[in-house]
């Protein structure tokens, strides 16, 4: 049970993905209902606001990271603080889809956790006619990773709220799971580490 006066729970979301795929566009659409047409590469932006998640007031903290390779160096640092990741690619750009593999690996390495809340997001769904990444390929990769796949459009706001809320729900249930007694994180961690070794 939560006391009424307590500070609402804070969920830390990190936007990852190549440059220009629409991470900032998604974030700003979610935060301020606006769509930015011009492309302005991000370094690292921070957003935080209160939202109601399934009737409970929570705070969402969004770290919008840089997609440009130039900034790859500082990513590690940022990833460490994340509790959930939206891994975004543009369905109109195959490179960006390929890059998701690298991002996934970097996240797993930094977080050292196979089950970290994670959504694969195919953005720019409004540009269906320019699609380069087939839906099946994207869903295939998502199933392989064991994560959900959602297609969004920062322009039309399609599925924008959904990806953020779905991710927050995952984060929340992960936290509840971690807080359960007898399911200590340390134990989990060692298990995950073994798994990771197998993958590598």
């Amino acid at each position, binding site marked *: 049970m939560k006391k009424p006066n307590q500070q609402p729970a804070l969920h830390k979301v990190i936007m990852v993905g190549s440059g220009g795929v629409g991470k900032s566009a998604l974030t700003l659409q979610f*935060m301020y209902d606006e769509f930015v047409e011009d492309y302005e590469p991000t*370094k690292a932006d921070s957003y935080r606001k209160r939202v109601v998640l399934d009737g409970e007031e929570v705070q969402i903290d969004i770290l919008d990271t840089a997609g*440009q390779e130039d900034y790859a160096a500082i990513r590690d640092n940022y990833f460490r603080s994340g509790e959930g990741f939206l891994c975004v690619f543009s369905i109109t750009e195959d490179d960006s889809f390929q890059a998701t593999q690298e991002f996934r690996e970097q996240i797993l390495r930094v977080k050292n956790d196979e089950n970290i809340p994670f959504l694969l997001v195919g953005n720019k769904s409004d540009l269906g006619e320019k699609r380069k990444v087939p839906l099946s390929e994207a869903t295939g990769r998502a199933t392989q990773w064991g994560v959900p796949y959602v297609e969004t459009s920062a322009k039309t706001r399609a599925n924008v709220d959904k990806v953020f809320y779905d991710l927050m729900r995952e984060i929340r249930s992960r936290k509840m799971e971690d807080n359960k007694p007898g399911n200590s994180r340390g134990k989990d961690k060692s298990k995950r580490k073994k798994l990771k070794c197998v993958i590598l």
Partner: protein
Amino acid sequence: MGPPPIVTGVSPKEGPPGTRVTVRGEFLGKTASDLSGLTICGCDCLLSAEWKSPNKIIARSGPGKGKGEILVTTRSGGRGTSTVEFRGYHEMIGPMKESAVWVEEAPLRKMWWGRRGLTPTTYQHDDPLGISIEGVEQKFPEDGLHKLFPGGSGDLSSENFAAGWFLLERHHATPFDDLRAGLAFLRRKVDGQKEGQLSFIKSNVGSVMEQLDTLAHLKERFEEDVEKQGQDPTIRLEAAIKESMLEANKLFEDVLSRRERADATRSALAVLQRFRFLFGLPGAIEKNIKKGDYDAVINDYARVMNLFGNTEVPVFKKVLAEVESRIAQLRELLHHRLEDAPTTLEAQKKLIRNLVNLEVGGDPAWDAISCHSRHLAATMIQCRDTHLTQEQTALEEGGKTPKSSKSKGASSSNQNTDWQASVPARVLLTEELADTISERFPDFWKLGQAYFTGELQVKVVPGRQQDFKKLVLAGISLFSGLLRAALMPHTLVKTPAAERASYGVWHSRGMEGLGPWLPHCLRALRQGYSSLIRLDLPSEVLDIVASLIFDLRVHCMSTLMKQAGESIRNLHTQESWNIQFDGEHGGITHLPAECERVVAEALQLAKDSVLLADLRETPLLESNVVQRDLNNLILNMLLGFVEVLDKLALGSDAMAGDSLGASQMIGSPSIFRGSDSVMDKGRNKDKETGPAWEQRLLSVLSNIEYTKCVLLPRIADLFARYQLPAQTGPLAAVNKALAELDQRVLDAYLEQRSDPLVGTIEPSMYIGNFNWDTAVKPADVRPYVKELLTNLISVHSEVHSISPGLVWRVLPQLVETVAEELARLMVCLDRKFNVHGTEQACADIAAIREAVQVYSTPTAEAFFDEALEAVPRLSDTQGKKNVETVLNHFRSRMRLQLMCFRDPKGTRNPS
């Protein structure tokens, strides 16, 4: 008021100073002008802020370092909050370094021209390992680092870079896993660096080509210019600059000349102004002097002397002379004011400063001090004279003052409004002097302090310190002397006559009735003293007053005690002889209680004002002399009470009092006259109402007993309560005096009672021509026996009615006397007993003996035996039977009377 702004987004969330930051949120201002404040990390960034929409502002970050809030303030919503933070950091980046951030130019330029020149390898990053060091603020002590790595450095660019140092300094709290991650990160970066330059060119091939094109183009244009303009294009430039300078001068010539003219006018006006000031000055000075604004006068004077002091112009000189004369008048005036009755300290200081500023000769500050001192003395002397004459007139009018004050004295703590009229002049004097000293003296002292500390801005003449001290001492000595002369002339006995006279000579009659006022005087004096103590005076000065207070306390105490003694000695006039009984101690009059009240009152007064030591006072009783005096005073006071008792019992007044002589008993055997006499108004009519002497004696005896057993212990308790050391000496002496008095009073009573009692026996025995040799057969005891017993009963009742305990001291004595008289009568009988006479005598003696048996003593028994032996033996049993019959008859007839002699359940005093 609208909703306050709230910042929910920042882009980017960190960066070096000058970073272009997009701030997003809600209610960030309805319009650009609604935005009234923006701080990032505590730095005001409003200047660079660009309002875009109520949701967005763009600004540049300030020089703040570290994490901080982004706060927006709007006119419509006030000061806002933020949910996100910006982190400012400082970084140095070489020109060849790929940089994701916009590089400030200023630090770079410094490097281009700096001595060290440009070192492409210079690389400084906050965090080469890519490990966040946020929040890890614990520092590793630097000394330790120096010890661990002698000559090393944690600076990445240093030749002596020591990795251990660096790690300890930056990451001594970083977990191992994180360090490993950092190492991996560093490795990747190094790898990247190797191919970095190539990839840099590769990825930027477009712009590199563009730059090359630009350079080629630049060269082309330059060569073109050289062709057109010749080798040195600056010649033409120089010519152009010169020409434009000429043109500019021409343009401004007009303006400049106008300015010059304006300046000239202005200075002319200033000169005129100055002249006006000079000529108006005499008038202005006069006006300001009238207003009392001396500061203004002094300022004006200084100014005029500055401006025209050295003038040679005759007109000016004339005016100046006039000014000088006004100023001289002012000096005079100020000096007079200084010597007049001193006003407040501040006003005086101001006057002195004014005089100093006016360059008056002499030493105005010292003048003020000595004038102050004179004034103080004069005030005190005048005060003395006023009250001296007041007392004299009062004394001449018939000494009304002391008398009326006496009645008021006891309640002096709460005087009503008309008390002033009856207050003795000396008390008023004390009050006034104490007021004077506490009001005037501090100013005097502070003035002196100001003088010596240089606050008055005058040079202190050497030796003045000593003079000032003399003045202070003189003032205080005068104060003390005046008070001593008025309140305690006896303490001035050793003072030289002339000095003594200067303190005033008061008539000794005026001392009467001063006693009750002394505590009041002491209070007033203490008030004055406390104001002196606050001044931080030299102890030499304070000691004068301290000793005055001490003496006054002693005097006050002894006066209080003496007064109490007097009141006690006067108590005998208050004796009403009303006997009150308390269960334990028989009857007493109210005198002991009165005495206790007087003592308690005196101690109360003494305690409040005398015994408790105030600030900087010595406890009175520490002095042995005072202690001894106090003992004497107490003894004297208490002896007063013994004297009162003595006087009441055995004084000439008491003796002259009505007495129940023997005559009344003779022939009135069965009437209890003695105990009735209080009621017997006829007998006491012409005397002042009151009991007979014998009864007074008894009352006094009872009072003595009470005093010994109850009053003295209570008084001892009182002393203890007021923290006076146990007064064993005086109390023992008083006890002794009491015991002695007790004996005398008892003797007096016994004599008074036994003489008539015994005297009646013989005449009564032979009443009705009775003779032992002609006696007939006895039928009853003889009447003298009954009379004797009745008289004894009346004494018993008299004593018992006042103090049952006394019965045991009185009756045995009487019984002894009676027995002795019986023995004497029987032994000295010159006639013979006949048989019946013998029976009668035996019966009589046995009856008496039996009746008083309870109060009998061995001595009495011996006398009874002696009496019996003088009577012949009873020869036969018939005789014995006859005696027995008589005794039986006696026992039944006198049953009631005999009951009086019984011991009523142990009233016998154990002593």
